[in-house]
């Protein structure tokens, strides 16, 4: 039966090829975007772990991802520290590693933290080599894994952050998320770098974020609420709130992915339906003959459904392989900049093929039913 269906498809090589190609285009796009989405979801999940184990306090009006040139005064730190349940309120200061944008993916940031209190936070990521920053460290840096690779840094070596030399004292393990491209320094060092970059911006003692580590056993949501009530002029982002912001971000991207999938569905599906209707009407007499010699409705139905699903399957396989090839090449090209744009998960490989096969089968239902329910006598008369 399979052999027979394949031979039938081969009869109209050009048409079969074009229909398959239509699916290939859709599935190619789906695979590439799927790999992109997998990478983003990976980063988002990393960010989720990073952000949801603490409460972030940011200036009013800004969000987890975007600080719009507004800063917190350091006087907020003792205020927050005074809220019952707060173990440590850590002033933090982030600025871009370079003024040129690194393009796609998580930004490369210099993160300054108040080292006298930041131990709990800095221990959130496992250290691979060396040690985490300690109170009193100056001109020292702990690098996220991506940055370590980019600088080809070893413990004890010196790297330049915005033109200033820093000694590498530690390198974090890969988390596949935001902190991989962070360079952790002391709060004072970060502020100094900021001042050097913005000589006309009169800054005193400021912080971009204040991260709150709760006492053990304290409910983070309740604590966030208490901070919000007792400290004015700040926005408190609780783990739940962070989760919401992160989800929103990935939701938008997944919606785009779904949109592409939907377009592939309509375009590919219609072209399969079209091809199958043409095949059925071309072979009407053959269908009549088969019925005359005793074919059941079901076997005609099965034959045409198989043909349609094979179109989908071949289109899916080819589109997916081309997609993987493109993803591989793009990753190679960008790897020189230490940026990984795509991640290939098994879902990225298997998903589009299954999707295309189901799509093909579904698109075949209508033409196959039409073929199966032809009256033998009418079908035989057809020329």
């Amino acid at each position, binding site marked *: 039966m399979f052999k*027979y269906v394949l*031979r*039938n498809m*081969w*009869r109209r090589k050009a048409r079969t090829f074009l229909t398959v190609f239509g699916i290939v285009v859709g599935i190619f796009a789906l695979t590439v975007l799927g790999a992109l989405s997998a990478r983003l979801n990976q980063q988002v999940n990393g960010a989720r772990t990073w952000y949801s184990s603490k409460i972030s306090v940011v200036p009013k009006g800004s969000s987890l991802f975007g600080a719009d040139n507004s800063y917190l005064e350091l006087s907020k730190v003792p205020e927050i520290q005074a809220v019952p349940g707060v173990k440590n309120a850590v002033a933090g200061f982030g600025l871009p590693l370079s003024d040129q944008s690194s393009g796609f993916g998580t930004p490369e940031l210099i993160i300054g933290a108040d080292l006298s209190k930041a131990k709990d936070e800095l221990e959130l990521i496992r250290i691979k080599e060396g040690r985490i920053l300690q109170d009193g460290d100056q001109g020292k840096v702990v690098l996220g894994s991506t940055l370590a690779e980019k600088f080809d840094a070893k413990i004890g070596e010196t790297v330049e952050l915005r033109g200033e030399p820093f000694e590498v004292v530690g390198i974090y393990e890969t988390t596949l998320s935001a902190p991989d491209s962070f360079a952790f320094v002391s709060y004072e060092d970060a502020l100094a770098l900021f001042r050097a970059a913005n000589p006309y911006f009169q800054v005193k003692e400021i912080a971009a974020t204040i991260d709150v580590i709760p006492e053990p056993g304290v409910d983070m949501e309740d604590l966030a609420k208490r901070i919000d009530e007792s400290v004015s002029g700040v926005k408190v982002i609780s783990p739940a709130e962070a989760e919401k912001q992160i989800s929103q971000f990935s939701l938008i991207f997944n919606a785009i992915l779904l949109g592409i999938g939907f377009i592939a569905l309509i375009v590919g599906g219609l072209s399969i339906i079209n091809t199958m209707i043409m095949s059925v009407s071309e072979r009407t*007499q*053959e269908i*009549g*003959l*088969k*019925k*005359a*010699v*005793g*074919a*059941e*409705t079901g*076997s005609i139905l099965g034959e045409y459904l198989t043909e349609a699903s094979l179109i989908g399957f071949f289109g899916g396989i080819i589109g997916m392989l081309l997609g993987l090839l493109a993803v591989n090449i793009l990753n190679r090209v960008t790897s020189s900049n230490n940026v990984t744009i795509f991640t290939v998960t098994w879902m990225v490989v298997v998903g589009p093929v299954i999707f295309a096969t189901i799509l093909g089968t579904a698109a075949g239902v209508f033409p196959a039913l039409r073929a199966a329910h032809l*009256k*033998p*006598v009418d079908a*035989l008369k057809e020329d």
Partner: protein
Amino acid sequence: MIVVSGLKKIYKIGDMEIRAIDNLDLTIEKGEFLSIVGPSGSGKTTLLHLIGCLDLPTYGGISIDGAEISTLSASDLTRIRREKIGFVFQEFNLLPVLNARENVELPLRYQKVPSQERHRRAMEALEMVGLTDRANNRPTQLSGGEQQRVAIARALVTKPVLVLADEPTGELDTYNTCRIIELMRDLNRETQQTFAIVTHDPMVADYTRRVVTLRDGKVSSDEAGLEQELTCE
């Protein structure tokens, strides 16, 4: 045995009623070799389709080996076609993507016969029509006469009680016409299968044992054929 009684087939085209078969009675005994003749539009092919369970009558009954087909469901009719009837068509109707043997195997496939036995029986049927050496050829590589022989092998492979042929020689030259008729008559004599051949070729009718003539959907004459001996050259 096939008994047709009070058979009517009426087509409606717009407001017009066309009585393709109009109150027709006919009995065909087992093992007969008969031709059905008549002018175009006399209802020959329609009758063949009705007897072959490819179409349903408007009124009247057809019984095949005691089974009244008007009471049967579509899947029962499929089963009767599959088990009791073999068809031969004017245009051969071989599937172009299958070779001769695979075409002959097709009805057995629908009977779910295992592949080895299918193969064996198809080769047997091809031997009966003298085409074993063409078993692996596709229809496009065969002459018209050869294609019709393959079609006959396909009709016979299930050992049906009734073989219905609709203008089987319509596309063939005189020599091949003669060979096909000769083949069908020999098979009829050997196997005692019933053959009913629709034709408008007087030569074909002359070779059969019984000639039923239709006119306006009715039997206008039903007489013994000349049953001439064949000499194909």
